[in-house]
């Protein structure tokens, strides 16, 4: 649908691996979370563990599956990020939205909990699609 497999194959062929973080939802309240460097979960994408190699991404996926098996989290998947200006931030519009909250309600979501991190234009500036390896959510 979004060309991810093709892109991943191209990346593998050139040896380039994109930066990724692993995201999920917390089971009890459905809050968007990310795997952190200590093997725990953080609500902030800036604090997420960033994979720089395929092995690293695979290791993170194993931890995520363990989190699912322990019934802490659900719907785990990797998403591409950029680390421009030392800040880890999602690439796709969709993931920027998850990282900050609905643009129409700045008083709700993560953007309301930490001031100064709203990036309403971030999703409009990138040329990359990068929707991650998320299984398509078909709950419409």
């Amino acid at each position, binding site marked *: 649908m979004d060309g991810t497999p093709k892109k991943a194959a191209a990346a593998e062929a050139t040896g380039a691996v994109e930066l990724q973080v692993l995201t999920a939802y917390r089971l009890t309240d459905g809050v968007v979370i990310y795997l952190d460097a200590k093997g725990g979960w953080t609500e902030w994408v800036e604090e997420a563990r960033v994979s720089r190699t395929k092995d690293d991404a695979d290791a993170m996926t194993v931890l995520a599956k363990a989190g699912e098996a322990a019934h802490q989290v659900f719907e785990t998947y990797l998403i591409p990020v950029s680390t421009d200006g030392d800040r880890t931030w999602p690439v796709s519009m969709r993931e920027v939205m998850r990282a900050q909250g609905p643009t129409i309600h700045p008083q709700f979501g993560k953007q309301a909990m930490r001031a100064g991190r709203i990036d309403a234009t971030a999703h409009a500036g990138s040329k990359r699609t990068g929707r991650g390896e998320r299984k398509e*959510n078909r709950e419409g």
Partner: protein
Amino acid sequence: MYRYDEFDHVVVTERVEQFRNQVTRRLKGELSTDEFRPLRLMNGLYAQLHAYMLRVAIPYGTLSSRQVRMLAHIARKYDKGYGHFTTRQNIQYNWPKLLDVPDILADLASVEMHAIQTSGNCIRNVTSDQYAGVSADEIVDSRVYAEILRQWSTFHPEFTFLPRKFKIAVTAAADDRAAVRFHDIGVIVHKNDKGEIGFEVMAGGGMGRTPAVAPTLNKFVPEADLLSYCEAILRVYNMLGRRDNMFKARIKILVMATGVENFTKLVEDEFAQICDTALKLPDDEIARIRAYFAPPAYEGLAANSKAFDAQMLKDKAFATWVEINVAAHKQAGYAIATASLKPIGGVPGDCTAEQMDVIADLTDQYSLGEVRVTHEQNLVFPYVRKSDLFALWQGLVRLGLDNPNLDMITDIIACPGLDYCGLATARSIPVAQRLGERFQDLKRQRDIGELRLNISGCINACGHHHAGNIGILGVDKQNQEFYQVTLGGHDGADASIGEIVGPSFASDRIIDAVETIVDVYIAQRQGKERFIDTYRRVGVKPFKEKLYAAH
């Protein structure tokens, strides 16, 4: 009004406790993600972009003031202080915690509400005409038949795991306000020459990536056979509908692939087998349900109210609101009033807990305790004495829900879009807000006249863009929001699907593009022609020429 009987009470109460137990088992780890998903979906609980989302059923959009107060309480106690009314006349909450959902469902059950049939591949909450029972142009109250269908469809054992979700709408009015031809089954109530009630039944309509206007299978199904005929359609669909490809699983695909004639034959053959079974509706059962919807105790009022006439002359803003948002009532001295949930710059369909509380009060004071949700995401006060319209309007002014824009360009249907939805490819609501601001001038809106503009944030078309006179579909082009425009959609009795006008527009050009379309319409229209009529007369060409002139 709909009466919740002992049977419903037992079913719903048991259901809450079952779900409470399922949540406990999920949290303990006894149910996996995959095991729990269908269970939560059968209770209206989705996983969306930022959080869980709970969709609560409002059968045919009818709510009592007591229920509205409970919806406000839930918004305040368990959510972030607001709810969102949807195109299926339901309400959804965007931030519930899984831990709280059993308590929310218990609170809902205390006012005879639930979240059954709001998700999953079952027959969904049946929708109907928001003016049912009160409009001057109806044959009977269509909610009688919507309720009969609801009772038949709830937990129907044969139709709990259909190939895909299934939506039914019923109308009994000349003016189709329920978009019945865009449903899996559409039902129009008719009366024949002998004065007998029967149903025009159509099947295979829908939105989504393959929009379709439902063809009529039978022009007059006798009243007693409503359930047998619908059961026959569902049986054919359940047997032959595709389960291998979810994008081709809706009944519209089956009807297209089979051909209307062949599909009708399959249904009629099945119907012949089952029409004389327990599904036949006895007259006394219809009468029993009809009694649920007996007209309220109207006062014997004069057709005209002197107080109302004086207020119309005195207050221009009130008079404008009446002209646009108030419809004729079948009972002398009464009126039907619509509160717009599309204030300038607002989120279509959103309502805060505070607004809901005041709406409940206004409902008690001025609408015999009943309010209705429309598929256009507005609220209707169905039983307002003409002499009370001014006081109701003043109440709505204080709430900011007095925008006189019914059926006009800013009365926009918009899906939640990428701001909330896990499926969306672009945002819908900010486009609706920008259009609301651009076209806020009332004089201009009135000059443009009736124009339905609908916005969806992805191809699934929850914002009904295919049925909008102007339809806007958000798409993701290399991580940028673009908007494709369709023209000529219409969801009335003469329903049609919008045609794509040309290449999509970047987010910063879409508002100007709509303005261009409106300008072309104004230049092309003859007399008092509506947008849709002008479009049908002149076609897409003049719009296309102007929109893409610079390219």
